[in-house]
């Protein structure tokens, strides 16, 4: 079995997933699977108005239904502390902030009875006229103080308007992307078990440690009261990140009220308003260039939506800040708060929609200048970060473009659109650049040597299907200089101490820092002959100070995507027979799980290019296609040949493992590469996603 790969060092070898067998045989227990004696089940009663007040809840009739144990609502719920997170401030008043917001939780002895009673519960509302529809010219748009996560709202240098006025070639276009939902296969689920004044919460989260401080502040728990366990997570894509989602609060509330363990699992339609989504965007790009395609001006303006419960502004225009060099640059964001659910992180927030706009506009500039789109990007490579002036820790975009062009067979491409007819198909090719920030966040890890010669590493990491557990095992084994089968990495337990979550492509960079450091220190202590006590010898490392001491660099992963697209001449059906992705992501720890991450990301990019769109009915304030039959994600049949390569990217300014993170860069720019290829196929510019048959050919 490759699991017990004896190669040393292990980093660089394609170790198969350590928990893979458990997952495919059903032994792996997800949050909603954990067996708990005496378990009761909570079902959410969602609001069916987009704005207004709850007048009356028919609690008595619900309590009389079969199996119902309790109804949690505004009159009996524990009082919460307002921590500035409206999505978690549940049952504290009568306001309804959006369709689908919980107005009560029905607790019963079986999930079916809980759900039936919740669906039958009568709720009387005082509805108010809602404002639910995002528009690029919405009068409520404003500049927020910052954009996600803490980026400046506006950046600029030079005089964009003057430079555009004097530019030989100008591209000025608006790009639109729809609301999209994360839709992990595993729904959000939380099981709260109270015992001896402590609470154990089994939940599906990308950030096991982060749940603890948030819920503790919310409920007023003393330190040490709450422990969060999240051993396996069935996908997250951003919407199991911070803050914790309402299912966690509801489970803790209900367990407190009924005095027995309670599980709250959200239904697929309930995930849509309660767990986050990507905002729709309207982005305007203005590019000015000389006749050779060298940029003199670059402007990226983004309009976005948020909710009235919480301001979350997706950083769509941030993509343009480090990407291409121009003397005159401006990026800005405006957001409008609507009577809608709260948007959150979803699959490369900011970079995914932002790259669609900029990388599409670059293709339009290439067309306008008569310059090859790969060459155009090479001509606009900046020496330093064009917005901040910082040096790049490493920047291998040009390598990615050149290697990609070679692998894809770009040379000799006829730039003219709509000249390649092949039976029932128009064919075309397109390219886009990509980047994603390479960050790390403070994390604590423990490495323990046991008397039997094995090692245990503990860190509150999350493996959301990425292979995090596996690559941490490889990194730890190499740091300890032992085979991987002597190392067990335990994750998903908040009791292991502060740790970054699986988000922002920061997991491996953040977790491996203290894992590798603690393991090296432990190996040193053992080598120095330190005695091994019966319960083991432990080294602990907290990376906070080390991260703070890093030199000032612009740190990014870079990449390039190439797409071949076929558009049916009769129907406008769009197919993508071929995608090539080339990445510079620092060190690749495990080529097998890395490749899976990259093809997954590219597939998500393809999916957003062609399929994904949450359809808001403004009268209800609800996305009416809230299920996986009507909201289409790519199937196997949509995915053609995918070629993934990594270029060498040694970078000493990152972290002890030299990794940049590659979870999300696979998504960035793919939609633009496909849209650019669709134009090359048909001659019709695609400035709005998704590229449906209705849009593709007409």
């Amino acid at each position, binding site marked *: 079995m490759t699991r017990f790969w004896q190669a040393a060092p292990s980093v660089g070898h394609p170790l198969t997933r350590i928990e893979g067998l458990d997952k495919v045989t059903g032994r792996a227990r997800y949050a909603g699977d954990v067996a708990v004696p005496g378990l009761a089940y909570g079902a959410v009663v969602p609001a069916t108005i987009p704005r207004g007040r709850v007048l009356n809840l028919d609690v008595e009739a619900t309590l009389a239904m079969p199996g119902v144990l309790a109804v949690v609502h505004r009159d009996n719920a524990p009082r919460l502390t307002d921590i500035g997170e409206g999505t978690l401030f549940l049952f504290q008043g009568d306001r309804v902030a959006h369709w689908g917001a919980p107005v009560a939780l029905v607790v019963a002895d079986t999930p079916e009875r809980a759900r039936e009673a919740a*669906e039958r519960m009568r709720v009387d509302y005082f509805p108010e006229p809602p404002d639910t529809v995002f528009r690029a010219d919405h009068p409520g748009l404003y500049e927020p103080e910052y954009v996600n996560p803490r980026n400046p709202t506006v950046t600029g240098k030079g005089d964009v308007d003057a430079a555009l006025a004097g530019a030989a070639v100008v591209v000025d276009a608006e790009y639109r992307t729809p609301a999209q939902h994360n839709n992990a296969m595993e729904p959000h689920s939380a099981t709260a078990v109270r015992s001896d004044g402590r609470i154990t919460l089994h939940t599906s989260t990308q950030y096991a440690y982060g749940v603890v401080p948030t819920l503790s502040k919310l409920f007023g728990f003393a330190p040490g009261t709450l422990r969060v366990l999240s051993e396996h997570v069935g996908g997250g894509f951003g919407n199991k990140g911070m803050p914790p989602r309402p299912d966690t609060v509801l489970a803790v509330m209900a367990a407190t009220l009924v005095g027995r363990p309670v599980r709250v699992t959200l239904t697929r339609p309930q995930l849509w308003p309660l767990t986050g989504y990507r905002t729709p965007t309207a982005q305007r790009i203005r590019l000015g260039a000389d006749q050779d395609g060298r940029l003199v001006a670059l402007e990226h303006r983004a309009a976005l939506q948020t909710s009235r419960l919480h301001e979350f502004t997706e950083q769509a225009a941030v993509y343009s800040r480090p990407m291409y060099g121009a003397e005159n640059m401006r990026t800005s964001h405006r957001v409008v708060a609507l009577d809608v659910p709260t948007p959150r992180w979803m699959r490369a927030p900011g970079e995914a929609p932002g790259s669609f706009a900029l990388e599409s506009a670059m293709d339009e500039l290439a067309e306008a200048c008569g310059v090859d789109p790969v060459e155009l990007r090479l001509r606009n490579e900046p020496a330093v970060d064009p917005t901040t002036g910082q040096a790049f820790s490493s920047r291998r975009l040009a390598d990615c473009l050149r290697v990609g062009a070679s692998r894809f067979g770009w040379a000799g491409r006829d730039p003219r659109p709509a000249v390649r007819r092949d039976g029932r198909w128009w064919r075309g090719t397109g390219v886009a650049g990509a980047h994603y920030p390479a960050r790390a966040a403070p994390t604590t890890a423990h490495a323990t040597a046991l008397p039997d010669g094995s090692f245990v590493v503990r860190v509150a990491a999350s493996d959301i299907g990425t292979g995090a557990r596996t690559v941490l095992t490889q990194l730890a084994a190499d740091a300890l200089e032992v085979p991987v089968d002597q190392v067990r990495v335990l994750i998903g337990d908040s009791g292991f101490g502060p740790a970054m979550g699986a988000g922002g492509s920061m997991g491996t960079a953040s977790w491996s820092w203290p894992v590798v450091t603690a393991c090296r220190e432990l190996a040193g202590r053992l080598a120095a002959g330190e005695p091994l006590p019966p319960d083991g010898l432990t080294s602990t490392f907290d990376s906070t100070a080390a991260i703070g001491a890093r030199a000032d660099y612009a740190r990014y992963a870079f990449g390039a995507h190439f797409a071949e697209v076929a558009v049916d001449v009769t*129907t406008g059906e769009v*197919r993508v027979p071929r995608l090539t992705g080339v990445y510079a992501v620092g060190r690749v720890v495990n080529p097998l799980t890395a490749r899976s991450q990259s093809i997954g990301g590219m597939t998500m990019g393809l999916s957003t290019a062609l399929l994904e769109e949450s359809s808001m009915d403004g009268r209800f304030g609800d996305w*009416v296609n809230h299920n996986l039959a*009507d909201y*289409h994600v*790519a*199937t196997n049949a949509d995915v053609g040949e995918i070629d993934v390569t990594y270029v060498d990217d040694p970078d000493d300014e990152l972290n002890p493992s030299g990794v940049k993170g590659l979870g999300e860069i696979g998504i960035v720019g793919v939609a633009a590469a496909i849209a650019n290829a669709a134009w090359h196929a048909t001659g019709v510019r695609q400035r709005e996603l998704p590229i449906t*048959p*209705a849009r593709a050919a007409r």
Partner: protein
Amino acid sequence: MREFAYARARSVDAAVALVADNPEARYLGGGTNLVDLMELGVERPELLVDVTGLPLDDVTEDGAALRVGALVRNSDLAAHPLVRERYPVLSQALLAGASGQLRNAATTGGNLVQRTRCVYFTDATKPCNKRMPGSGCPAIEGEHHNLAILGASDHCVATHPSDLAVALAALDARVDLQDLAGPHEIPLVDFYRPVGDRPDLELTVQDGALVTGVALPPLPAGARSAYRKVRERASYAFAIASVAAVLVVEDGLVSDVRIGLGAVASHPWRARVAERALLGGPATEAAFEAAAEAELDSATPLRDNAYKVPLVRDLVVAVLAGLAGER
């Protein structure tokens, strides 16, 4: 989900006796649509009568016709040698539907009586005249990009989601039924009611009638047939438009033509206007286009589904041209 009773029918008569008089009872076949709707709270039966043990799972020759039992699974029907040989349009339509797993479970009879995928119908928190008569139709002003352009009314613009039924409409199939009065059969195209002002009433047959099978008459000599489905993703999606066509061309003239259209109306749409326009005339692309346009003269597209009108026109032309050009 409402708690419900479950019974296994021992005979067709027993099944009909259990369901025919009980508006709260439903037949359970493959369950691929009914069980979903129960989980969504759209269907709330008190009794499910499982008919999957009944002897209705054969494909048999009946003279020149083919008789398909109501419980023949979609995947079995698609793979049946006689179906593949005589009715390629039917096999193609079945294989264009759903996923392999669903086709293994879904039955011929159940496929015909599946419900619309209109998002307001499948969401019990929204008004819908089909689900709750008189509550209104939010789709007309709302999400309707994949709803009807033909035969709809001010009360409902839902479409029928079946691929199979579109092919059956083009094949002049007949539906075998049994109700309390006994067995009888009607043409498939008469099995569905026009929408009118009662979109909740979808079928012309008595409540509680059991579909026991489908009869396929022989096709005329020289007939070619094909199904083409357009969908937003490459598999596992309902059609945004589909065409089932049977064509006979003799000496360059159309001597027989039958066209079924899917995803355009509340039921599989037989394009009689186009067929009349083509019959006896030349089998040319120009004639196909004129015929398709004549059929679509009566289209009443909404704000977001007007793209279907040229799409259906072009698809009809492409399918007929493909059949006329085959040798």
